[in-house]
């Protein structure tokens, strides 16, 4: 049986140079996504794992269920549709259930043996979350007040999804800024922050007090948790907690970051980093 690796909130298995990654949850006997995951977030996690094992994945071919812009911002990997003239040497195969396979060869038989037990999702919870996402994703779901527009989201996508900071003298700046006090433009984000940080404060906001972007899902989740963290290199940030209902933070906890869905509006999913505890 392949070794099952817990990775960024997912389960992963290697078969030589091929990788299968799947959700750790099940629903009615089938593998199912958690409350803020989809094929895009899992593809990003898989690419992070491949990179950490020394594989170079500059491009891969996939079907349209994966958001190519988000993958590019988070990993630097180009996602091709398969119709382009230049083909990639990696392929991303999307399973019917919440599984993905990264493979170089489409000819070779792959043999993955996944985990025998998965965490069962509550059926009512899963249905409510799915309904909320469906409503959020409608093009008619619009804001009547403050929200992050597509332009604003895309402007910060590389820094947000890649945790890329600006370098200025000895210090790193994150999230990115425009001009400094001398009126000089600060260079574009290029320095990756270490993907772990320490919790300095946290809160759980009741559903009624949540921003409108979370109005449909916050009641299902029983509120939303946010952590205020400090990275080892200095910058601080605030992040939602991934798989929110499973972790209650404490000051001093170490957390790492995984890409998850943040919210959707007018048909566009905004992805971003969420915090996940580092198991001691």
């Amino acid at each position, binding site marked *: 049986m392949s070794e099952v690796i817990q990775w960024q909130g997912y389960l992963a298995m290697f078969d030589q140079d091929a990788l299968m990654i799947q959700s750790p949850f099940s629903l009615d006997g089938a593998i199912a996504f958690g409350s803020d995951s989809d094929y895009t977030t899992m593809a990003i996690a898989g690419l992070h794992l491949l990179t950490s094992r020394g594989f170079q994945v500059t491009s891969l071919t996939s079907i349209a269920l994966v958001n190519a812009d988000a993958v590019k911002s988070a990993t630097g990997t180009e996602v091709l549709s398969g119709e382009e003239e230049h083909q990639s040497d990696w392929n991303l195969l999307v399973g019917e259930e919440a599984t993905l396979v990264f493979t170089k060869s489409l000819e070779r038989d792959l043999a993955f043996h996944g985990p025998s037990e998965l965490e069962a999702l509550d059926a009512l919870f899963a249905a409510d979350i799915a309904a909320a996402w469906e409503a959020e994703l409608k093009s008619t779901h619009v*804001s*009547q*007040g*403050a*929200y*992050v527009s597509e332009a*604003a*989201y895309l402007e*910060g996508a590389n820094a947000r999804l890649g945790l890329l900071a600006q370098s200025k003298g000895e210090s790193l700046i994150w*999230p990115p800024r425009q001009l400094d006090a001398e009126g000089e433009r600060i260079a574009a984000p290029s320095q990756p922050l270490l993907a772990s940080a320490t919790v*300095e*404060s*946290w*809160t*759980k*906001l*009741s559903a*009624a*007090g*949540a*921003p*409108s*972007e*979370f*109005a449909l899902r916050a009641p299902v989740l029983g509120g*939303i*948790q*946010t952590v*205020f963290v400090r990275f080892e290199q200095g*910058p*601080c*940030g*605030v*992040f*939602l907690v991934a798989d929110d209902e499973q972790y209650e933070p404490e*000051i001093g906890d170490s957390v790492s970051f995984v890409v998850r869905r*943040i*919210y959707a509006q007018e048909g566009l999913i*905004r992805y*971003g980093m969420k915090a996940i505890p580092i198991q001691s």
Partner: protein
Amino acid sequence: MVDVAVIGAGQTKYGNHPSGLKGMWAEAAEHAFASVDQDFEPRLVDEAFIGSVAFGGGQLGNTAALLTEHSGMEGIPVRRVENACASSGFALRDAWMAIKSGQADVVIAGGIEKMNDLSAERRRYWLGVSGDTEWERLAGLTFPGTYALMARRHFHEHGSTHDDLVNISVKNHMHGFENEMAHIRKQVSFEKAQSGFMVADPLTLYDCCPTSDGASAVILAADHVVRQFTDDPVWLRSSGAGSDFLALHDRPSITQVRATQQASSAAYKAAGITAGDVDLAEVHDCFTIAELMATEDLGFAQTGEGGVFAREQRGVRNQGDVCINPSGGLKSKGHPLGATGTGQAVEVFKQLRGSVESARQIRDAEIGITHNVGGSGATCAVHVFGRDRA
């Protein structure tokens, strides 16, 4: 340089006001005009500065033109001032500067917000609009969450506790109980405030200000025209202002508000006073932790000692070192965003003139300040008022 006096001030009752923007502003202006000792007519006003966040709509553009048109001041230079919850604190500062510069002799500064005519659904869209939309809002934060992060960190760094916040809530409800203009005129027991519904852990319902409608207005005059209007002016001795990073995570500390420190330092220096000279302070307690931190940032308590200050009841009317929020503050009097700053000035004006309800009059008050904060501390205006000119 010209000195500036407050010659009149008035406001609506805060809460669920039956009128719209025009009616509320007219009511506040009418009270302000009537509070001037000599006959006063709106045509005497040279210029107007009106703070508003424009929460929810109503009249988004050219608000000040509409409101002055409906209060007998059409034709004068006007503008809306927006700095989140500090909008009218900055309107007051702008009005003060207009007189100091010699451009105007009589100016009105005010503020207004209509927050309760929205459906619950629509109101949600306006929660936290003055925080960092791109980074804080996408981390699920509105202001209860932002201030909750500050509170938990303050507890961790300085040993303050939620009971210290409860003391602030109980005090402000006690102060506001006698205030006829207050939104929530209800005393709250320590036990009840201690066990409120959790809004943003560790902040409960009793740590959060209400959502209020309201308008307020203050009339300022240059020293060379003051005697035309009153023999009993309150002097606006100084105005200080500051700003900080919009997002909490960009600031050097989340348990101090640098904008408050800058604003109060500048205002005290210009007025020639120290924090120890202040008799009463209208402090921006949108959340109880905001008042706790402000007592430190304004110099009433040492850094980290805001919890002790609250525990020892040092901000209680006619009992402590200085009366913090004699009006009941935002917690009890209410928080109609754009109206709050000049509403604080209305309270200080009346306290220094001895014209509030007798039960809540501060004895022998000579110097009062207002402290008006935008959002989680990105902007702040502090004003020093005195019975004496300097």
